Every structure is written in C-alpha cells, then in structure tokens.
C-alpha cells in the first residue's frame, strides 16, 4: 500500500508539467470569461491577448466553458473569480444587468461608437462588434433561396435547414426571438409549420454551420456576414446569406467589467484595447462580425456581407423572466414526440 502511494505521488509529480496550469495560479493575470470560439486557437481572443501582453505586460487568462449563455450562467455562479466578461449579446443583456454582476465603465472611446450600438445606457456593457442573423445557403445546392420566414416553410425546403438550440446557443436564441419579433404571440404556429424544413438542431453555432459547408445541409442559421469568410479565406462566393423581407435582427456583442474586481485598471485597459483599430480589425476578420468603431477600414471581401434593407428591434424580453422561461418551455414542447 505505502509503496503504491509513493508511486502514485511520483506519477503525479512527473505529470504536473503536462497538465494545464490553471485556476490555482491566477495572481497577476486578468481572468476573462468568454465563449469558447472566442478564446480557441482560431478565435480572435488569442491574437488580441498576445498583443495586449506585449503592449502592457498584463497576461490574460481565458475561461471559456461553452456558449455565451453557459458563460453567463457560470459567471453568475462564481463571479468572484472573474475580472471581465466578453461576448454577451442583446438577448443576454437584461439578464446580465439584473444579476448585478457588472461595474460601469465610461470609456472615452465610446465617442467613436455609433449610438445605435450602445445597448446599455448605464455603460456596464460596452459593445465591440455586431452582425445580423440570417439564413445562409449553399448556392450550388439551392437555386432559389428563401425570401422570408414564411417562405422558409415551403415544401421545396423540406429537411434542409440546420438550426441551433435556443437553450444552448445565442444564434439559436436569436432566431427564436426573430420569429417572435415577426409573429408575436403566433410564433408557436409558425414553428409548427417550420418543423418539416428542419434537418437538425445542433447545440452550438459551429456544429450547425459546418454542416452547411461540408454539404450535409443546404441551409443553416448564421450571420449576414458569414459569406465574407468564404470570400476572404477561400476566394469563393458559393455560400450566400438570404435576405428576408421580414427584416433582420441585429446582434450586438458586448463586454463588461465584473463587479468587485481587484484589477479594475487592467480591465479598463483591456476594454480600451478591444476598441482600438488593431483589435477591431482582428474581431472583424476572425469573428466575421462588423466593427462598432467608426474609424476601421475593412477589406473588399466585406462587400459580400448582407446589407439588410430592414432591421427589426429585439423583442423586449428579459431572459431570466418567467415569461421567457415559458417561451422556452413552449418551444421544447413543439418538439416533444
């Protein structure tokens, strides 16, 4: 027994360098909660964090438990461990503000942000990029793209749309809110009609969108800016975003300083850094979203982005309210067997 314990300890000591260094030694690091695709090797997070470290000497530690909804859930649970949160959108705004977990920061850089993007007048959540939800399609598989939410229910599109689960994905939630904005109380009827069009509902955006680009499905819920990626990095115009006559919902992504942080100054520095031209460009090129700052010039590939003729406001729904929970329950019941 003793010998095995010693062996065990040895194994552990030996393995230590190979295990990730994590939550135990965060002193001096700015802990940023964010969604996983932001901080992944391919996301904008690592490039911005590296440049930030070089300029200020402050290291960033990302904690990315999953989608933005998951991230907010976790932050509300253990707020004492975070300094900043990045990636909350309109649908999570009221929930984050009601939870009272953020401190206001009036950055002078807000002057360069168009007022339509400033979703939180109390400046606890500061916008950094935006985009429009849209149904993207593969023009080689689909000759006539849908023209409206109603048109999407047509028999011609049976079994061809990939959506995301509104319980686990912000675009998924965005699409549900889009249908509520257009159909009001009659949204469940719309979803009943939409059901035959749906091929599958994935947990997150990346799983869903990759079904489109690998030819598994001709349509997927994504962003009006998604075609930009294919033009910029693959030089092809095969994937397009369909413009809907109902209008499109504008998603604004924002960040905020966590209440009670001991690194307030560093957090402010990072927020300003996210709004400088370098980061705004990385966000545009990497997240394939549009920058909120006025002074950022974008490459020609961004001409491929959908410019919706009509923008519709988010339906006013607090995501932690009972009404919201009832909507989610209703939505899941539509899919009960």
């Amino acid at each position: 027994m003793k010998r095995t314990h010693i062996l065990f300890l040895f194994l552990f000591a030996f393995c230590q360098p190979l295990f990730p260094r994590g939550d135990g030694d965060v002193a001096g690091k700015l802990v940023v909660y964010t969604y996983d695709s932001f901080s992944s090797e391919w996301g904008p997070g690592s490039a911005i964090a590296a440049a930030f470290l070089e300029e200020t000497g402050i290291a960033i530690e990302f904690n990315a438990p999953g989608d933005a909804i998951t991230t907010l859930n976790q932050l509300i649970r253990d707020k004492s461990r975070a300094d900043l949160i990045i990636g909350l959108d309109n649908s999570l705004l009221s929930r984050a503000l009601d939870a009272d977990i953020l401190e206001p920061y009036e950055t002078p850089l807000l002057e360069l942000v168009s007022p339509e993007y400033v979703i939180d007048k109390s400046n606890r959540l500061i916008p950094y990029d935006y985009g429009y939800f849209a149904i993207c399609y593969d023009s080689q598989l689909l000759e006539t793209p849908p023209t409206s939410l109603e048109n999407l229910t047509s028999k011609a599109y049976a079994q061809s749309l990939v959506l995301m689960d509104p319980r686990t994905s912000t675009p998924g939630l965005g699409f549900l809110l889009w249908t509520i904005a257009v159909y009001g109380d009659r949204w469940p009827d719309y979803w009943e009609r939409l059901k035959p069009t749906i091929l599958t509902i994935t947990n997150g955006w990346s799983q869903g969108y990759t079904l489109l680009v690998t030819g598994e499905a001709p349509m997927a819920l994504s962003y009006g800016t998604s075609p930009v990626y294919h033009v910029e990095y693959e030089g092809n115009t095969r994937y397009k975003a369909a413009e809907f006559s109902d209008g499109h919902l504008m998603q604004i992504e924002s960040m905020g300083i966590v209440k009670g942080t001991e690194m307030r100054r560093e957090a402010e520095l990072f927020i300003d850094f996210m709004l400088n031209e370098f980061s705004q460009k990385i966000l545009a090129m990497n997240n394939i979203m549009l920058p909120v700052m006025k002074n950022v010039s974008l490459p020609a590939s961004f001409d491929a982005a959908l410019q919706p003729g009509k923008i519709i406001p988010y339906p006013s729904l607090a995501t932690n309210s009972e009404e919201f929970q009832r909507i989610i329950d209703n939505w899941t019941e539509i899919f009960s067997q």
Partner: protein
Amino acid sequence: MNSKSKWGGGWILIGPILIWGLAFALPISSVLTKTGMVPKTMMQLISSPYYRGIIGLTFKQAGLSTLFAVILGLPGAYMIGRLKFPGRRLLKSIGTIPFVLPSILVVLGFILVFGNSGLVNSLLRLIVSDADGWKILYSLRAIVMAHVFYNFPITLRVVGNAWSSLPRNTYLASRSLGASPIRAFFSVDFPRLAPAILNSAVITFLYCFLSFAVIIVLGGGPQLSTLEVEIFRLTKYQFDLSGPAALAIIETTFTVAIILALGWTDSRLRRRNLDDSPAVRRELERISTGKLIAISLYLLPIFVLILTPLLSIICYSFLARSTRAGTLALSLNHWRDLLHVNGGILSVSMLSIIRTMLLGSIVAINSTINAALVSWYTTRKKRAWILDALMVLPLGVSSIILGLGYLIVIERIPHTTMIRLMALIGAHTIIALPFAYRIVAGGLKTISPRVLQAARSSGANTVKSFLTVELPMAKQSLITAAVFSLALSAGELSASIILAPNSFTTIPMAIYRMIGTYNIFAASALGAILICIFLIGFLAIDRIGDSHT
C-alpha cells in the same frame, strides 16, 4: 481459516473501501440528496410532455436497437456455436471489435460511411450522377443503425458461447426418440439458449438506454434526445444541478428495475435446465457447400459492416481537401499537423494523446491495485458476496450521472484544476473497477488452494506467499485488468466531457470537438491513433486469454 488470515484480511481493504467510498458512494449519494429526495421536481419532470417524450424516445430507440441487434447477432451466434468452417475464429475475434471500440469512433466511422458526402453517397453519385443522396444522419434510423452495429457482437458472443456449450446427451436422446432437428431444437436447445438470448438482449438494451455519443452526434436537438443526453445538456449548459439530479434518479430507477427483472427471469429460466448432466459438449458440425454459401452470405456483409467504418477512419486520415468543398487528394497534412512542434509547443492532438495515456496509466494502476486487493480478500473468504456486489455496482450507474455526482461534490469547494483532475481520475477508476475486479478475481480463483497450502507449510507467511506465489501466478490477469482499464479510460467520453478542467482534452474529447466542427480528417488521424491503442490492447488481451485457457 487460521488466525493469520483473519487479521490478514481486514487492513488490506482499507484503501479500496476508502477509494470506493470517496470516488463512488459520495458522488452518487450527493446526486440523491441534491433533489432532497423530494418527489416534487420529479413529478414536475414526468408531467411535462417534453420530458415524457424524452423518456418515450429513450425506450423506443433502445427497444428497436436491441431487437435488430439480436436478430443480426443470432445467425452468427449459431455459426460460432454449432458449425465448423474457415473463419470461425476470425468471426469470434472480429465480432468483439465493435463492442470494445469507444463509441466516439463508432460515430466517426458512421459519419464517414453514411454522411451526405460519405462513402455510400459518393458511390451512389458515381452511379447516378444527380442523385439526391441518401439522408440518414440526424434521424432515429441513424441512431438505431449505429447502435445495432455497436451492439450485435454482444449477442454474437454471449449466445455463441451458450450454443457451443449445449449438452450433447439430451439432444441426442430427443433425436433418437424420433424428433426432427427443428423440433429437437425448440424442445431441447432453445430453452437452454433462452437465458443467454435474454441476457444479451438486456445488456444491449441497457447500453442503448444509456448511450451518449451516438445520440448526441447522430441525433441531437430537442426532437432526438434521451434521458442521458438531457442530463448532460442540463448539467453542461444550464449549470442546473437539481434538474439533472432528478432525471438521473428517474433514469437509474429504470436501469435498476431492468437489472432486477433480468435477475428474476434469468433464475427462473435457468431453474428449468437444472437437471442437465454435466455438459458433454456437442461436436461442431462440418458443413456442406450449400451451407457454406449461406454462411458467406451472412459473413461477408458482417465483415464489411465491421471493417468499413474502421478502415474509413484510417483512410480518411491520409486524405485532405484542397478547399472545404474541393476534391479529395492524398495528403499527410493531418499527420504532420499532429506531430508538428511549434516553438516547443505540442499540437492539441499530440497533447491529447499524451494526456490520455497518462490519465489511462494512472487509472490502470489505481483500479488494478484496488481490484487485486479486494479480489485477494474475496477469493479466500466465503461470505464475500457483499464485496462482490459493491465492486460491480458502479456498472449500474451511467458515466454522465457519475460525472454529475462529482460536480455536485466539488461545487461547494473552490474547484481548481487539480481537484477537477482528481475527480476525473476518480471517475475513470470507478468506471474501470468492475471490469478490473472481475478479471483479477477470475484469475485468482483459478489458483489452486493446494499451491497456497504448500507455500504456507514450507514456511511462507500470508504476505510472503502472496508476493512469491500468488502474485506471479496472477500476473496475467493483473496485466489484462490494467490493459483493459487503460483502454476503458482512453475511450471514455461522457464523464470526461463533464469533469475535465479547461484545456485538458483527451483523445475522445478532441475527436468529439473535431466532429463538431466537421474537421473530419483531423478527427480521423486522431481516431486512427485511438484505434491503434485499442488494437494493441485488444490483441494483448486476446493473446493472454488464449495462453490462459
């Protein structure tokens, strides 16, 4: 029993019992207490149409999968059990492969073969150029097909073994009394096969009932979700621990009820066959050409069914597309990426391999030592059935629920990376322990008590006889147990995905994520490595098993 072995017994169990209590009993009991045993949450869940639908689908997919898996497995079981033909041994070995494969590889192989741009549809488009393609993924059909592929070997092995050990005399007696072969089969053989068929069906049902990777990848969404996936979704995404705890209790109630029902029916079925004389095995039949053709009609599709997904994984790892929708070309890119070292930093895939092997080794050492200590005790005590039962009990709890239990336990303490890792090691150890225990106890039981008496009478004390006699004799089963534990840990996905700390990625987790982003080729490269790990383990066990018998 002499006095020595009396005191020699107790202390040896301290370690295993401590680990069992901390790593299994504690998390599971916290799942129970989390709901406060209040039936209110549970009633709420059961009364919602959504969750009723989920429960319904869980039963439906498991029932359909079991039905088809048993039907597909029975002819093979008959061949293994009754016939002598070239390839019998191969069928037996190859038939085991899907069963020991990690489910994530089954899923990966399934996508490569049946996906919209997979093997079947590519062939279809070669023949009919404007074919729409056969849409099979994301449906109940896809789930059932993957489950059948994954589980029919259970029937093949279990019923095949029963078939080959049928008693000879009763059958011959009934034939000589004038019964036709068919009648003799139904009156003599079938009742004796029934327990084996029932057992394999119930095991298959339980595996499908608790299936995770297959459902979450090939089904998914609210339309195709099961209890296990729903527990995962609530735990992982909603940070709600009492909802999933209630679902976990519902799920476990079902599995326990199924296991108890099996035990009851099984003992009734067996009681009828008690009067069998010690079995003299019937000889295997030599087969005619006609039968040989019939057999190959079964065997060829089976071999194709088993080997195509595996070979696809290996082939795909050597392919690449020029662009996302470009044409396929031979390429070593994914292997280069895997082995690439960038400024002293290993690739994510390489790190996942190292971490998986390290985690697996710790788990293997841990579970084998514990299994050995307990088996050493249980093989020399007569009334050790409680310990027996305790060791096997973790089999009845799904890995997701185990993971959930750990989350509830560490929820109250600041969960550092180290604690998360300990939880992961604990969960994997508990998952491997029942198997390790069965293997080691089986090995120790074959050592004749006379050998031990001889050792004692020549002056060796308990410890010395253990170290010098039993340990070397049990070496093979210890190695088998360790290899098996390592393989189980290396293939485990669901508990890992819940418990692993940020940025600690094992091979199955990496493959799961790569499938999620449809990085099929990189997933295949990593999948090929996992297949190698399993083949080496499988061959080792197969060989040790051979030299054993």
